[in-house]
């Protein structure tokens, strides 16, 4: 079974985000970018399936600017076998919307015929949480979202999902789409020898035209604003003082 893993290049979670002066979005020029952390978890899960002999090949695919090549190299260094880059934008500030990404992924799925798509539940830049679900609708495949455990049993996937207040285990018919949550696994490090080996693994470059998909935006961003800055705090000298302040000044107890 082949596993397809979509990976997105996003602003690194350590970066202190700055909104562009014109409010059109977040400033990404000269900012450190990394693989979306949920996608890293998806890559890790795919590689584990391969190591267990359940998967035969892991293909990583990224849609975005040319620099997403680095993100794919990371997936290859972790252990993916090959990669597909669909260059769909020139400007690092252009975000391809979930529906366009899902259409492109659907086209890649038709070509590659994987038995499983493992995707992150959402990207940490826009928090859309939509691509996996849209892909499932476009393909007519079953879907299991927010996975915290994945087991493949013959023609079914047993997926434990994190839902409000607990866990739910569902059985999904293969082929299917699984979107992964934070607690599924801890992604491995890419060792330096594997980083070097990844340079020799195949990375195909494509464009949306190759798949006949229109990626022009359907949404327009009205405004992007910084969260309000936190006001300076005060240091208290003792627990008693803290309690007094919480009672008298904050009025919360």
């Amino acid at each position, binding site marked *: 079974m082949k596993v397809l893993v979509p990976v997105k290049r996003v602003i690194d979670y350590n970066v202190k985000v700055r909104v562009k002066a014109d409010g059109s979005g977040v400033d990404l020029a000269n900012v450190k970018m990394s693989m979306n952390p949920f996608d890293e978890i998806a890559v890790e899960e795919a590689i584990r399936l391969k190591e267990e002999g359940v998967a035969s090949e892991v293909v990583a695919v990224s849609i975005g600017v040319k620099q997403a090549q680095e993100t794919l190299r*990371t997936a290859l260094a972790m252990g993916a076998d090959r990669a597909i880059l669909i260059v769909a934008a020139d400007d690092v500030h252009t975000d391809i919307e979930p529906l366009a990404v899902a259409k492109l992924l659907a086209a890649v799925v038709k070509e590659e015929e994987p038995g499983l798509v493992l995707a992150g539940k959402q990207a940490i830049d826009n928090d859309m949480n939509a691509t996996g679900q849209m892909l499932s609708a476009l393909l007519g495949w079953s879907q299991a979202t927010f996975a915290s455990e994945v087991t493949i049993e013959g023609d079914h996937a047993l997926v434990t999902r994190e839902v409000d207040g607990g866990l739910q285990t569902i059985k999904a018919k293969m082929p299917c789409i699984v979107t992964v949550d934070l607690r599924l696994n801890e992604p491995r490090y890419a060792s330096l*020898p594997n980083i070097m080996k990844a340079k020799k693994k195949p990375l195909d470059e494509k464009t949306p035209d190759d798949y006949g998909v229109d990626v022009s935006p359907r949404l327009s961003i009205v405004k992007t604003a910084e969260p309000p800055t936190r006001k300076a705090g005060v240091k208290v000298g003792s627990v008693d003082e803290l309690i007094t302040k919480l009672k008298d000044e904050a009025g919360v107890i």
Partner: protein
Amino acid sequence: MVYPLFLDDEHEMLRDQIRRFVAEKVHPAADQWEKDGCVPREILREMGELGFLGIRYPEEYGGSAMDTRATVVLAEELGRSTYAGFAITALVHTDMASVHLFNAGSPEQRAAHMADVVAGRKIVAVAVTEPDAGSDVKGIRTTARREGGDFVLNGSKMFITNGVHADLYCVAVKTETGGPASRSVSMILVEKDTPGLSVARVLDKTGWRSSDTAELSFQDCRVPAENLLGAEGQGFYAIMRNFQNERIVLAAMTMGEAQAALDLTLDYVKTRAAFGAPLWSKQAIRQRLAMLSARVAAARAFVYATAARDAAGEEVVKEVSMLKALCGELVNEVMYDCVQFHGGTGYMRGTTIERMARDARVQSIGGGATEVMLEEVAKRL
């Protein structure tokens, strides 16, 4: 952030992995290492598994056959950890000690040890300095006398990093070759537990507290003549060559330290309020931090440019000497101001900046003191 002028994707990927390792494995544990006076072997082995200890060595030993630029990324990121004692433990092993074994070692010597060195199973120290000879390498007095098929070592070595816990020691000695002092220095490999080799003292230092440092004693310490590294009498030249790498690495490490100190001081002055506003609102403070940031950025660019030239095979002795002098002093200036802007907090044990300031002090002394480096620069002006 990427440094496209000098670095490729794989360098940034390496940087990411080291940063993650530092965040996950070093930061939560290293205060304990500072108390213990050494870095646990387990950590060094984990670094070995990730390929961090074999960046430049050939693939046949598990290395990645990369060049000086990748080494500089390692050194910078380990310096950035804020635990310079941890950083130097790894960097002495990778770039100051094992280089003697690899560069001068015979195929047999390499085969016997290099895979273990790259994996972090054998940790290496280099012992050149003596109680009476530091900057003046030719002035060493430890001797190695030939006796049949052996060398017999006598003397003592001072300030040896990894000296307490190393498995392999590359030791500079004088052999009976006659001729000028520069032609009588040789390097000899001595394995841990060789009779006659002992740790005379575990040294108690101002900083680098998670790095073990020893005074070593050699008393009729007998090793087979095959342990000679390179040709007899060529040790001085080998040491001088390997010092070049050591100094680029130290310069990169200090700029990692300096940047980390500036970053945490920026965070501090932006949140610490005095006279009704954050300290950052005072020009006196933010202009000083701005200038220091500029100087660190310039020195860092010089480090990368020199590493790239070294990787391209250029002769960069003058630049390396400049870097060692420049960065060893700059890191101390940065620490001084960063402690200053932390106010009384910066003087308290337990704060990061206090530890970093103690750690930085040695950078203008060890591995080529500033004055000695400046003489090397002056000779070439």
